[in-house]
Protein backbone atom coordinates (compact mmCIF):
# COMPACT_ATOMS: atom_id res chain seq x y z
CA UNK A 1 0.00 0.00 0.00
CA UNK A 2 2.75 2.40 0.89
CA UNK A 3 4.40 1.68 -2.44
CA UNK A 4 1.17 2.56 -4.21
CA UNK A 5 0.63 5.77 -2.29
CA UNK A 6 4.12 7.07 -2.98
CA UNK A 7 4.58 5.99 -6.57
CA UNK A 8 1.20 5.59 -8.27
CA UNK A 9 1.15 9.18 -9.58
CA UNK A 10 4.68 8.93 -10.90
CA UNK A 11 3.74 5.68 -12.66
CA UNK A 12 0.71 7.37 -14.20
CA UNK A 13 2.49 10.46 -15.45
CA UNK A 14 5.48 8.65 -16.92
CA UNK A 15 3.21 6.13 -18.64
CA UNK A 16 1.44 9.08 -20.27
CA UNK A 17 4.74 10.65 -21.32
CA UNK A 18 6.03 7.38 -22.80
CA UNK A 19 2.76 6.65 -24.62
CA UNK A 20 2.79 10.18 -26.03
CA UNK A 21 6.39 9.86 -27.21
CA UNK A 22 5.62 6.48 -28.78
CA UNK A 23 2.68 7.95 -30.72
CA UNK A 24 4.81 10.84 -31.96
CA UNK A 25 7.64 8.57 -33.06
CA UNK A 26 5.61 5.84 -34.71
CA UNK A 27 2.32 7.15 -36.08
CA UNK A 28 2.41 8.70 -39.53
CA UNK A 29 -0.82 10.71 -39.28
CA UNK A 30 -0.30 14.39 -38.46
CA UNK A 31 -3.34 14.77 -36.20
CA UNK A 32 -2.39 11.55 -34.42
CA UNK A 33 1.05 13.02 -33.81
CA UNK A 34 -0.56 16.13 -32.35
CA UNK A 35 -2.65 13.90 -30.07
CA UNK A 36 0.63 12.33 -28.96
CA UNK A 37 2.08 15.75 -28.13
CA UNK A 38 -1.06 16.53 -26.13
CA UNK A 39 -0.81 13.27 -24.13
CA UNK A 40 2.83 13.98 -23.40
CA UNK A 41 1.97 17.50 -22.24
CA UNK A 42 -0.67 16.18 -19.85
CA UNK A 43 1.85 13.70 -18.48
CA UNK A 44 4.44 16.39 -17.89
CA UNK A 45 1.89 18.57 -16.09
CA UNK A 46 0.90 15.68 -13.86
CA UNK A 47 4.56 15.06 -13.10
CA UNK A 48 5.15 18.68 -12.07
CA UNK A 49 2.14 18.73 -9.72
CA UNK A 50 3.18 15.40 -8.22
CA UNK A 51 6.62 16.81 -7.47
CA UNK A 52 5.02 19.43 -5.23
CA UNK A 53 2.64 17.05 -3.45
CA UNK A 54 3.04 16.25 0.23
CA UNK A 55 1.30 13.21 1.63
CA UNK A 56 -1.94 14.27 3.37
CA UNK A 57 -1.24 17.92 2.58
CA UNK A 58 -3.81 20.67 2.11
CA UNK A 59 -4.43 22.92 -0.88
CA UNK A 60 -2.39 26.16 -0.83
CA UNK A 61 -5.45 28.34 -0.29
CA UNK A 62 -6.27 30.12 2.96
CA UNK A 63 -9.99 30.27 3.43
CA UNK A 64 -9.92 31.60 6.98
CA UNK A 65 -7.19 33.25 9.00
CA UNK A 66 -6.90 30.39 11.46
CA UNK A 67 -5.51 27.98 8.85
CA UNK A 68 -1.86 27.06 9.27
CA UNK A 69 0.68 27.03 6.47
CA UNK A 70 2.19 23.77 7.79
CA UNK A 71 1.29 20.73 5.74
CA UNK A 72 0.35 22.80 2.72
CA UNK A 73 1.43 21.39 -0.64
CA UNK A 74 3.97 23.32 -2.68
CA UNK A 75 2.24 26.13 -4.63
CA UNK A 76 5.10 26.77 -7.07
CA UNK A 77 4.69 23.66 -9.28
CA UNK A 78 0.99 24.48 -9.51
CA UNK A 79 1.80 27.94 -10.82
CA UNK A 80 4.27 26.42 -13.28
CA UNK A 81 1.65 23.95 -14.48
CA UNK A 82 -0.88 26.73 -15.09
CA UNK A 83 1.73 28.31 -17.36
CA UNK A 84 2.51 24.99 -19.02
CA UNK A 85 -1.17 24.21 -19.71
CA UNK A 86 -1.68 27.52 -21.48
CA UNK A 87 1.53 27.12 -23.50
CA UNK A 88 0.37 23.62 -24.41
CA UNK A 89 -2.97 24.78 -25.75
CA UNK A 90 -1.23 27.54 -27.73
CA UNK A 91 1.10 25.05 -29.42
CA UNK A 92 -1.83 22.73 -30.04
CA UNK A 93 -3.93 25.40 -31.75
CA UNK A 94 -1.03 26.40 -33.99
CA UNK A 95 -0.30 22.76 -34.83
CA UNK A 96 -3.92 22.10 -35.78
CA UNK A 97 -4.05 25.16 -38.02
CA UNK A 98 -0.90 23.87 -39.76
CA UNK A 99 -2.56 20.46 -40.13
CA UNK A 100 -5.57 22.07 -41.79
CA UNK A 101 -3.33 23.91 -44.25
CA UNK A 102 -1.29 20.75 -44.94
CA UNK A 103 -4.52 18.94 -45.77
CA UNK A 104 -5.54 21.79 -48.10
CA UNK A 105 -2.31 21.55 -50.05
CA UNK A 106 -1.56 17.84 -50.10
CA UNK A 107 -4.97 16.20 -49.64
CA UNK A 108 -3.58 13.90 -46.97
CA UNK A 109 -2.29 14.01 -43.42
CA UNK A 110 0.09 11.08 -43.86
CA UNK A 111 3.56 12.41 -43.09
CA UNK A 112 5.18 9.74 -45.27
CA UNK A 113 3.37 11.05 -48.35
CA UNK A 114 4.11 14.72 -47.70
CA UNK A 115 7.56 14.90 -49.13
CA UNK A 116 7.95 18.02 -51.20
CA UNK A 117 11.01 18.87 -49.15
CA UNK A 118 13.81 16.49 -48.41
CA UNK A 119 17.42 16.49 -47.32
Amino acid at each position, binding site marked *: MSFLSSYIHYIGCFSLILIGLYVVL*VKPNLIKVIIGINLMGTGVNLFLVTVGYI*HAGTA*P*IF*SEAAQQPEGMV*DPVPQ*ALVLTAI*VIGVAVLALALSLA*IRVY*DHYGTLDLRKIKALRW
Partner: protein
Amino acid sequence: MRRLISLLLLLIVALGIFLCFSGASFGAEGASRAGKLTEDKVNFGRRYASRGLEENKAGNIVASVVVNYRGFDTLGEVTVLFIAAVGLAAILHARREEATPSKAEPASLIVFTGCRFLFPLILLLGAYIFIHGHLTPGGGFQGGAVVASGFLLIYLGCRGRGLRSAGVAVAESLSGLAFLAVALVGLAVGGSFLLNFLPKGSAFALFSGGVIPLIYVAIGFKVGSELGGIIDNLSGEAR
Protein backbone atom coordinates in the same frame (compact mmCIF):
# COMPACT_ATOMS: atom_id res chain seq x y z
CA MET B 1 12.27 -1.16 -37.96
CA ARG B 2 11.23 2.33 -37.05
CA ARG B 3 8.96 0.96 -34.36
CA LEU B 4 11.82 -1.07 -32.89
CA ILE B 5 14.18 1.90 -32.73
CA SER B 6 11.57 4.08 -31.08
CA LEU B 7 10.75 1.40 -28.51
CA LEU B 8 14.45 1.13 -27.71
CA LEU B 9 14.66 4.91 -27.26
CA LEU B 10 11.65 4.88 -24.97
CA LEU B 11 13.22 2.09 -22.93
CA ILE B 12 16.34 4.19 -22.37
CA VAL B 13 14.26 7.20 -21.29
CA ALA B 14 12.17 5.04 -18.95
CA LEU B 15 15.26 3.45 -17.42
CA GLY B 16 16.83 6.84 -16.80
CA ILE B 17 13.70 8.15 -15.13
CA PHE B 18 13.29 4.99 -13.07
CA LEU B 19 16.83 5.19 -11.74
CA CYS B 20 16.20 8.82 -10.75
CA PHE B 21 13.61 7.78 -8.22
CA SER B 22 15.59 5.01 -6.61
CA GLY B 23 17.84 7.50 -4.84
CA ALA B 24 17.40 9.84 -1.92
CA SER B 25 14.60 12.32 -1.20
CA PHE B 26 12.84 13.78 -4.19
CA GLY B 27 10.16 16.44 -4.46
CA ALA B 28 8.27 18.15 -1.67
CA GLU B 29 7.26 14.76 -0.19
CA GLY B 30 10.85 13.60 0.05
CA ALA B 31 11.94 16.96 1.43
CA SER B 32 9.32 16.82 4.14
CA ARG B 33 10.42 13.30 5.06
CA ALA B 34 14.04 14.36 5.25
CA GLY B 35 13.11 17.32 7.42
CA LYS B 36 14.36 19.79 4.86
CA LEU B 37 11.25 21.93 4.93
CA THR B 38 12.34 23.72 8.08
CA GLU B 39 15.25 25.34 6.30
CA ASP B 40 13.84 28.47 4.76
CA LYS B 41 16.57 28.74 2.17
CA VAL B 42 16.17 25.53 0.21
CA ASN B 43 12.51 25.55 -0.66
CA PHE B 44 10.55 28.15 -2.57
CA GLY B 45 7.17 26.67 -1.83
CA ARG B 46 7.64 26.62 1.93
CA ARG B 47 8.53 30.27 1.96
CA TYR B 48 5.62 31.35 -0.22
CA ALA B 49 3.15 29.29 1.82
CA SER B 50 4.33 30.71 5.12
CA ARG B 51 4.88 34.34 4.14
CA GLY B 52 2.65 34.78 1.09
CA LEU B 53 -0.46 35.69 3.02
CA GLU B 54 1.11 38.56 4.92
CA GLU B 55 3.15 39.77 1.95
CA ASN B 56 0.34 39.94 -0.60
CA LYS B 57 -2.84 39.60 1.48
CA ALA B 58 -4.27 37.17 -1.06
CA GLY B 59 -5.87 34.01 0.29
CA ASN B 60 -5.00 31.95 -2.77
CA ILE B 61 -1.25 31.42 -2.57
CA VAL B 62 -1.18 30.06 -6.13
CA ALA B 63 -2.65 33.36 -7.31
CA SER B 64 0.00 35.35 -5.55
CA VAL B 65 2.72 33.11 -6.97
CA VAL B 66 1.31 33.35 -10.49
CA VAL B 67 0.72 37.09 -10.49
CA ASN B 68 3.32 38.46 -8.11
CA TYR B 69 6.31 36.24 -7.36
CA ARG B 70 6.41 34.66 -10.81
CA GLY B 71 4.41 37.31 -12.64
CA PHE B 72 7.08 37.68 -15.29
CA ASP B 73 6.39 34.10 -16.38
CA THR B 74 2.73 34.95 -16.65
CA LEU B 75 3.53 37.88 -18.91
CA GLY B 76 5.48 35.51 -21.15
CA GLU B 77 2.68 33.00 -21.12
CA VAL B 78 0.05 35.55 -22.12
CA THR B 79 2.44 36.49 -24.91
CA VAL B 80 2.63 32.87 -26.05
CA LEU B 81 -1.15 32.69 -26.31
CA PHE B 82 -1.16 36.00 -28.20
CA ILE B 83 1.42 34.59 -30.63
CA ALA B 84 -0.70 31.49 -31.17
CA ALA B 85 -3.83 33.55 -31.88
CA VAL B 86 -2.01 35.90 -34.28
CA GLY B 87 -0.05 33.12 -35.98
CA LEU B 88 -3.14 30.97 -36.45
CA ALA B 89 -5.01 33.87 -38.03
CA ALA B 90 -2.03 34.52 -40.34
CA ILE B 91 -1.74 30.88 -41.40
CA LEU B 92 -5.46 30.53 -42.09
CA HIS B 93 -5.59 34.02 -43.70
CA ALA B 94 -4.94 32.77 -47.24
CA ARG B 95 -7.53 30.03 -46.86
CA ARG B 96 -10.27 32.44 -45.95
CA GLU B 97 -9.95 34.15 -49.33
CA GLU B 98 -9.96 30.98 -51.43
CA ALA B 99 -12.61 29.01 -49.55
CA THR B 100 -16.26 29.30 -50.44
CA PRO B 101 -18.52 29.92 -47.45
CA SER B 102 -20.31 26.73 -46.49
CA LYS B 103 -24.02 26.99 -45.87
CA ALA B 104 -24.64 25.21 -42.59
CA GLU B 105 -28.13 24.38 -41.51
CA PRO B 106 -29.24 26.80 -38.77
CA ALA B 107 -29.91 25.35 -35.35
CA SER B 108 -33.45 24.74 -34.21
CA LEU B 109 -35.35 27.41 -32.30
CA ILE B 110 -34.95 25.62 -28.96
CA VAL B 111 -31.20 25.35 -29.28
CA PHE B 112 -30.99 28.93 -30.52
CA THR B 113 -32.99 30.33 -27.60
CA GLY B 114 -31.20 28.13 -25.09
CA CYS B 115 -27.82 29.33 -26.30
CA ARG B 116 -28.88 32.97 -26.20
CA PHE B 117 -30.14 32.45 -22.66
CA LEU B 118 -27.04 30.62 -21.45
CA PHE B 119 -24.45 32.85 -23.08
CA PRO B 120 -24.67 35.78 -20.61
CA LEU B 121 -24.72 33.35 -17.69
CA ILE B 122 -21.52 31.72 -18.89
CA LEU B 123 -19.87 35.11 -19.30
CA LEU B 124 -20.98 35.98 -15.76
CA LEU B 125 -19.50 32.74 -14.41
CA GLY B 126 -16.22 33.42 -16.18
CA ALA B 127 -16.11 36.96 -14.80
CA TYR B 128 -16.85 35.63 -11.30
CA ILE B 129 -13.99 33.15 -11.60
CA PHE B 130 -11.41 35.72 -12.59
CA ILE B 131 -12.58 38.45 -10.22
CA HIS B 132 -12.39 36.08 -7.26
CA GLY B 133 -9.11 34.54 -8.41
CA HIS B 134 -7.18 35.81 -5.39
CA LEU B 135 -9.68 34.36 -2.89
CA THR B 136 -10.87 31.04 -4.29
CA PRO B 137 -9.50 28.49 -6.74
CA GLY B 138 -9.52 29.85 -10.25
CA GLY B 139 -8.21 32.98 -11.83
CA GLY B 140 -7.51 34.69 -15.12
CA PHE B 141 -6.78 31.60 -17.17
CA GLN B 142 -9.64 29.51 -15.91
CA GLY B 143 -12.10 32.40 -16.17
CA GLY B 144 -10.84 33.26 -19.63
CA ALA B 145 -11.32 29.67 -20.74
CA VAL B 146 -14.89 29.70 -19.42
CA VAL B 147 -15.58 32.94 -21.32
CA ALA B 148 -14.17 31.35 -24.47
CA SER B 149 -16.43 28.33 -24.01
CA GLY B 150 -19.31 30.80 -24.15
CA PHE B 151 -18.19 31.76 -27.65
CA LEU B 152 -18.03 28.05 -28.46
CA LEU B 153 -21.69 27.83 -27.48
CA ILE B 154 -22.53 30.75 -29.74
CA TYR B 155 -20.81 28.95 -32.60
CA LEU B 156 -22.85 25.81 -31.95
CA GLY B 157 -26.22 27.43 -31.46
CA CYS B 158 -26.25 30.70 -33.36
CA ARG B 159 -24.24 30.25 -36.57
CA GLY B 160 -23.02 33.46 -38.10
CA ARG B 161 -23.30 35.53 -34.96
CA GLY B 162 -19.76 34.92 -33.76
CA LEU B 163 -17.15 37.42 -32.73
CA ARG B 164 -15.98 40.22 -34.93
CA SER B 165 -12.24 40.00 -35.56
CA ALA B 166 -11.74 43.74 -35.06
CA GLY B 167 -13.42 43.63 -31.67
CA VAL B 168 -11.32 40.65 -30.60
CA ALA B 169 -8.15 42.37 -31.72
CA VAL B 170 -8.96 45.54 -29.78
CA ALA B 171 -9.90 43.58 -26.64
CA GLU B 172 -6.76 41.49 -26.65
CA SER B 173 -4.38 44.31 -27.32
CA LEU B 174 -5.98 46.66 -24.78
CA SER B 175 -5.96 44.03 -22.02
CA GLY B 176 -2.35 43.15 -22.80
CA LEU B 177 -1.44 46.82 -22.61
CA ALA B 178 -3.31 47.11 -19.31
CA PHE B 179 -1.25 44.26 -17.83
CA LEU B 180 1.98 45.90 -18.99
CA ALA B 181 0.85 49.31 -17.77
CA VAL B 182 0.18 48.01 -14.24
CA ALA B 183 3.58 46.33 -14.25
CA LEU B 184 5.33 49.46 -15.49
CA VAL B 185 3.62 51.68 -12.91
CA GLY B 186 5.23 49.39 -10.34
CA LEU B 187 8.59 50.08 -12.00
CA ALA B 188 7.99 53.83 -11.94
CA VAL B 189 6.68 53.96 -8.36
CA GLY B 190 8.85 51.46 -6.55
CA GLY B 191 11.68 50.75 -8.94
CA SER B 192 10.62 47.18 -9.55
CA PHE B 193 8.64 45.69 -12.43
CA LEU B 194 5.30 44.12 -11.37
CA LEU B 195 5.60 45.58 -7.86
CA ASN B 196 2.45 45.24 -5.79
CA PHE B 197 2.16 48.98 -5.20
CA LEU B 198 -1.48 49.38 -4.24
CA PRO B 199 -2.63 49.23 -0.61
CA LYS B 200 -3.20 45.55 0.05
CA GLY B 201 -6.25 45.79 2.28
CA SER B 202 -7.20 43.05 4.70
CA ALA B 203 -6.97 39.44 3.64
CA PHE B 204 -10.08 37.47 2.52
CA ALA B 205 -11.97 40.63 1.44
CA LEU B 206 -12.85 41.17 -2.22
CA PHE B 207 -10.76 44.34 -2.35
CA SER B 208 -7.49 42.86 -1.16
CA GLY B 209 -4.26 41.70 -2.63
CA GLY B 210 -3.28 45.04 -4.19
CA VAL B 211 -2.73 44.68 -7.94
CA ILE B 212 -3.44 40.94 -8.07
CA PRO B 213 -7.16 41.26 -8.91
CA LEU B 214 -6.45 44.01 -11.44
CA ILE B 215 -3.92 41.88 -13.28
CA TYR B 216 -6.16 38.82 -13.09
CA VAL B 217 -9.01 40.76 -14.69
CA ALA B 218 -6.68 41.89 -17.50
CA ILE B 219 -5.48 38.29 -17.97
CA GLY B 220 -9.06 37.06 -17.97
CA PHE B 221 -10.06 39.45 -20.75
CA LYS B 222 -6.93 38.66 -22.73
CA VAL B 223 -7.18 34.88 -22.45
CA GLY B 224 -10.91 34.97 -23.15
CA SER B 225 -10.56 37.06 -26.30
CA GLU B 226 -7.56 35.11 -27.56
CA LEU B 227 -9.15 31.69 -27.07
CA GLY B 228 -12.36 33.08 -28.54
CA GLY B 229 -10.41 34.30 -31.56
CA ILE B 230 -8.73 30.90 -31.92
CA ILE B 231 -12.12 29.15 -31.86
CA ASP B 232 -13.51 31.60 -34.39
CA ASN B 233 -10.62 31.16 -36.78
CA LEU B 234 -10.44 27.38 -36.54
CA SER B 235 -14.18 26.92 -36.97
CA GLY B 236 -14.09 29.05 -40.09
CA GLU B 237 -16.58 31.58 -38.81
CA ALA B 238 -14.22 34.54 -38.54
CA ARG B 239 -15.20 37.69 -40.33
